[in-house]
């Protein structure tokens, strides 16, 4: 099918260009890694002495949050790469070919998903010595969930890039959106510790449900209602984000 072939072409090209400059993949891992090493041990002692901390090891609570952070920030900033491709004229050049507009988007978004899944795996392996215990099947579902977050955030970032067209405008918008999303997902400390109003606010944030789902999955609790809900919610959001972004790709005079 043409869309599949086109998507593969764009994926292949994007991945090639990303791997030519792999330093960004490492930079993207650096922040979660520092949280793991420099903040995680603090959390461990808090977890043992704090009433209301959810059950499970401290790192089983903490690492899912870091994974969300990777997915959120990794994907939220992909628009910057698109802006540089717009500036070099590559996007416009490809718009005057039979290339499917959806493939222009999906090929790039899938590259982003693969990168963030690899980053997530690296972080998980690094977290094992700290005492992270994971259910292998749960890990697979968790990675799928992270992929869905990537497939939501990356298209949104691309949409903003196509509309705003320059880095100076994109940076504050992306930061303004992603920071509250991150804080309200309970990634550093579980939201069970939060006051009611904060918990209510967090429930509106889809990412908090994703964090809950990943925590349950790491503990092997597939039957936990948060798993089905988190996956379904993120799947719907990913479809919506892809639909919006592919419309923008089709229309925009990049």
């Amino acid at each position, binding site marked *: 099918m043409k869309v599949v072939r086109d998507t593969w*072409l764009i994926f292949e090209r994007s991945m090639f260009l990303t791997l030519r400059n792999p330093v960004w993949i490492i930079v993207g891992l650096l922040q979660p890694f520092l949280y793991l090493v420099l903040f995680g041990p603090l959390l461990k002692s808090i977890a043992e002495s704090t009433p209301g901390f959810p059950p499970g090891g401290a790192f089983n609570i903490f690492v899912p949050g870091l994974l969300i952070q990777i997915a959120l920030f990794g994907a939220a900033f992909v628009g910057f790469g698109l802006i540089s491709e717009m500036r*070099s*004229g*590559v996007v*416009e050049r490809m718009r*005057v070919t*039979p290339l499917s507009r959806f493939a222009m988007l999906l090929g790039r978004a899938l590259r982003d998903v693969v990168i963030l899944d690899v980053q997530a795996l690296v972080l998980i392996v690094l977290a094992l010595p700290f005492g992270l215990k994971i259910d292998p099947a749960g890990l697979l579902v968790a990675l799928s969930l992270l992929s869905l977050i990537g497939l939501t955030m990356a298209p949104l970032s691309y949409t903003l890039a196509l509309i705003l067209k320059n880095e100076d405008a994109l940076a504050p918008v992306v930061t303004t959106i992603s920071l509250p999303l991150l804080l309200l997902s309970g990634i550093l400390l579980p939201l069970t510790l939060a006051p009611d109003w904060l918990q209510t606010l967090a429930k509106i944030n889809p990412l908090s449900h994703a964090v809950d789902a990943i925590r349950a999955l790491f503990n092997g609790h597939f039957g936990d209602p948060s798993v089905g809900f988190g996956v379904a919610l993120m799947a719907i959001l990913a479809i919506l984000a892809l639909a919006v972004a592919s419309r923008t790709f089709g229309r925009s005079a990049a």
Partner: protein
Amino acid sequence: MTTQTRTIDPAAESVIRTRDLRKTFTGRGGAVEAVKGVDLDVRAGEIFGFLGPNGAGKTTTLRMLATLIPPTSGEATVAGVDLLRNPGQVRERIGYVAQGGGSDPLMTGRGELVIQARLFGMSRKQAEVRAAEVLAALDLADAAGRTTGTYSGGMRRRLDIGMGIVHQPKLLFLDEPTTGLDPQARANLWDEVRKLRDNGTTVFLTTHYLEEADILCDRVAIIDHGTIVAEGTPIELKRAIAGDVVTLGISEHERVLSLARAESYVREANDQDEDGLVRLYVDDGDRALPQLLRLLDGAGLSPQTIALSRPSLDDVFLRKTGRSLRETAA
């Protein structure tokens, strides 16, 4: 400067045909009519130049024809396809080279050509073969494995053109193809464009360089404020407004003038300028000059100096718009 002697078959099919093509941009500042009803007929196998100052509507028109922005109204057929109904099919049949180019500085020239060919449906094998052909044709074979970030301006421009023709389109759009190039690179690029034309590709280009329109293009449309003010071959356009001028440094003005005025090919003759020279306005200077020399020789008159000057496309622009393109263009 060379003169065009190439003739275009008027019956050749139109590769681009537009009727009352318009584009209005609506933004915060209200509506701006960038293109106000353009009628174009670009014939197969010609280099068609769209000449005008910056902001005249050249690029907007080209971007509409290349499917990048939808027209506000009007009709257009591009490469045999209805542009408004079926932009997707137009894209399969045209090549497009933007003013700023379109290569990634981290990709090699070969890599860019291969992916471009694959975007047009070629297999990896076919794309590699075709990329090698294009690299050789554009004299880029030695630089094929280098990243385009290391290319000179002229090389990058040739690669851009290579990407525009990798799928062998019948019609190629070039937006300001030589802007920013040094004279040597510009001359090289003109040669490449002529080669494409000679191989049967129709080329539609925009330019604000008078020389480029005059020397390179078979036919030219002059656009100003979104409207076409003149269209034809550069020679026709120039002749229509002024004709060529033969300037003679010679004595016995009265005899020269009366002799010249009796000739059918001399439109006007005078010596009213204070430089003491005789000016003869003729339709076709190339033909008139030898005849004039014979005429003067036969009458026993011999000029000390003789010069033939032709009106430039700037004179055409000046006549049609009241402004000089040299002043208007950046």
